[in-house]
């Protein structure tokens, strides 16, 4: 988008772009993976030390092709010794996820192509998560969840996060909410694996050092029957983010910065690998925010190398053995981008494109009608903790309606139980109430994508909204003429307090 050129010029100065087909110089975290496939989870010890183990080809007995992480994952999944970008390979899928919007169509294709009596390839590898159009009276939307349920019963699907009682989500212990966050919380995201989902933000799971991407119903129908998918190996763009993260920045600022830099098609057909000291310092939810939005740059997938943070998060969540992989020191990257994160400022994406970047403070005269905090990108526990931090720091009330939609039931519980650091034991929900926000809603995709007319917080009129979601296309949250400013939870909360797009430093410093 041309507008991103002028905007945030200062921020761009902190950024150096080296476009070259370089042999990788800095191997961020080079680990020796365990020898056998799917062996014990590899316990990596020295994450911080750049162990660049010399790897003479002779030492392994065979000449190895240097590969990026994404290439390696796909090589394993297709049982190939080496792969090059551009090759098309059939890969074995570890997990297939679908939801209420694309599941019924996927099931329809599966039945048509494989027969009414066909069985899915593996009942334990299919994860079905109703999350999009749940709390609505729309009959077809309700029917679609019924279709999922019937199919899961018939196929004895192991992981189906059902909801039957729409009047009270808490009466549905199995119900989770937004699929990408549920996948992570329920332990379905594991390093080194291939996860496909009928949702473009499936790339979210790349935060775990796995290959994860969105596919359509037809491809998903194929996977349901065979467990295989035909994938083209993407070249990898590497983003090196170094420097200490300033206390007013969140991962959302980083990814909006990157998308603004490379545009909404800057990574089309490509993998985006995030490395560097800043990335290593991010918690899992922040890494998810980063990977969640690679599709907004056209990316096929995003990856963050797995490390202690990853392994810690996974403890107790999965009993499946996994094996992380890492880019080789000599791997070839399509291009390298470098950021000094310590010099970046809070940014927003102005309507109507995620790459329409501007500094938050440049938009301080933009009057807003509402704030929305929710979705897979911006509705996780850490996102709400961040918003609460701003409200707490200001001690004031919001000036515009502020809608809170926790991504999952677990997030909702966290809002009502976790003490916010520095608050003297208050929970997020208490702080939100004191600030005059709307009561946290039932967990689901909510108004992130508009949805049926009666969806909570849907923009049914042309309004201006600051949102922690991931897309600001025309009509995305409902009304075609609605204007959406994408922002971090810090910036969203700060904007709620003033009624204008606001740099969170106004409250946090």
């Amino acid at each position: 988008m041309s507008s991103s050129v002028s905007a945030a010029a200062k921020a761009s100065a902190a950024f150096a772009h080296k476009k070259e087909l370089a042999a990788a110089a800095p191997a961020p975290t080079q680990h020796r993976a365990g020898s056998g496939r799917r062996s014990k989870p590899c316990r990596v010890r020295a994450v911080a030390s750049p162990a660049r183990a010399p790897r003479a080809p002779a030492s392994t007995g065979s000449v190895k092709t240097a590969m990026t992480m994404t290439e390696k994952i796909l090589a394993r999944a297709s049982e190939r010794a080496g792969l090059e970008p551009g090759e098309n390979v059939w890969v074995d899928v570890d997990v297939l996820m679908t939801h209420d919007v694309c599941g019924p169509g996927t099931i329809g294709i599966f039945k048509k192509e494989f027969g009414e009596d066909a069985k899915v390839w593996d009942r334990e590898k299919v994860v079905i998560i109703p999350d999009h159009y749940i709390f609505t009276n729309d009959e077809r939307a309700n029917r679609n969840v019924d279709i999922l349920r019937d199919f899961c019963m018939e196929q004895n699907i192991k992981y189906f996060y059902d909801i039957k009682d729409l009047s009270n989500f808490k009466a549905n212990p199995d119900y989770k909410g937004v699929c990408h966050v549920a996948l992570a919380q329920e332990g379905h995201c594991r390093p080194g694996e291939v996860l496909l989902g009928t949702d473009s933000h499936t790339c979210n799971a790349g935060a775990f050092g796995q290959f994860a991407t969105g596919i359509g119903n037809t491809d998903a129908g194929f996977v349901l029957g065979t467990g295989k998918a035909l994938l083209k190996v993407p070249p990898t763009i590497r983003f090196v983010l170094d420097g200490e993260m300033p206390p007013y920045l969140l991962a959302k600022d980083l990814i909006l910065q990157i998308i603004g830099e490379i545009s909404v098609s800057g990574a089309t057909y490509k993998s985006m690998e995030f490395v560097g000291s800043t990335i290593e310092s991010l918690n899992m939810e922040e890494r998810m925010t980063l990977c969640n939005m690679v599709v907004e740059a056209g990316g096929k997938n995003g990856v963050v190398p797995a490390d202690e943070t990853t392994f810690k998060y996974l403890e107790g969540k999965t009993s499946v053995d996994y094996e992380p992989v890492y880019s080789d020191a000599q791997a070839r990257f399509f291009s390298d981008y470098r950021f000094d994160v310590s010099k970046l400022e809070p940014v927003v994406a102005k309507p109507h494109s995620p790459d329409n970047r501007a500094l938050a403070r440049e938009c301080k005269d933009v009057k807003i009608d509402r704030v929305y905090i929710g979705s897979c990108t911006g509705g996780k526990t850490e996102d709400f903790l961040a918003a609460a931090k701003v409200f707490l720091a200001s001690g004031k009330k919001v000036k515009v309606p502020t809608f809170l939609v926790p991504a999952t039931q677990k997030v909702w519980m966290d809002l009502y139980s976790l003490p916010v650091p520095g608050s003297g034991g208050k929970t997020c929900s208490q702080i939100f109430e004191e600030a005059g926000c709307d009561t946290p809603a039932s967990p689901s995709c909510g108004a992130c994508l508009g949805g049926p007319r009666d969806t909570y917080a849907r923009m049914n009129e042309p309004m201006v909204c600051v949102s922690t979601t991931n897309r600001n296309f025309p009509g995305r949250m409902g009304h075609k003429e609605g204007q959406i400013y994408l922002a971090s939870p810090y910036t969203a909360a700060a904007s709620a307090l003033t009624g204008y797009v606001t740099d969170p430093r106004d409250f946090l410093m």
Partner: protein
Amino acid sequence: MAAAPTAAATVASTAVLAPRPAPTSAFLRRTQATSHRHPILKCRRAGTLTPAAAAGGSSPSSAVFHGEVFVVGDNIDTDQIIPAEHLTLVPSKPDEYRKLGSFAFAGLPTAAYPTPFVDPGEESTRYAVIVGGANFGCGSSREHAPVALGAAGARAVVAESYARIFFRNSVATGEVYPLELHDAGAWKECKTGDVVTVDLGNSVLINHTSGKEYKLKPIGDAGPVIEAGGIFAYARKTGMIASKAAA
């Protein structure tokens, strides 16, 4: 694609490849494909993506699409192609499939696009071909997007470039032919309502109204899948899954 198309025979065994019903308006389209295929299924699926020529093996597609063109700009995302409120429609159900067609491009801002793609009250469009700018189909993975365009009766999209998932879904479903322009800018020179011909054999888009011609890029990697008629047909053809009859 790693494997070049080998056997040609299996195409015939896949009844799923039958085309949609005859076009409503005689003017709209004529493809070699439609004239050769058996109209078995009521609606749906890969019909025209399997030009008759494909039965001959590896020869590239020689389909011709002719009709009026609908022109859109850069970065047309899937919310504009099919707004989320209509995603409750399930594409694999025939009546809902047709309904999806009636909502094709319903998300385009009316100010910028005063002419609707599908007239109010209609299920199909008069435009056989869509011309677009860069990054067509960006956004969500909703297969409803290519399906809506195909269900409305569009046969081909000619854009400067595509977002990955839309392109993939077009190929996998066979709903519309996703073609790329060799040079940028055609969408600025074409106007909605111009009469065009897309000639795949000669890789060219001809605008009869303006008298201009535009080169198309070769279909590339997706060729074998498109020629086979979608991902299922391709997988059967290459022996990845059993043929329909045996399944």
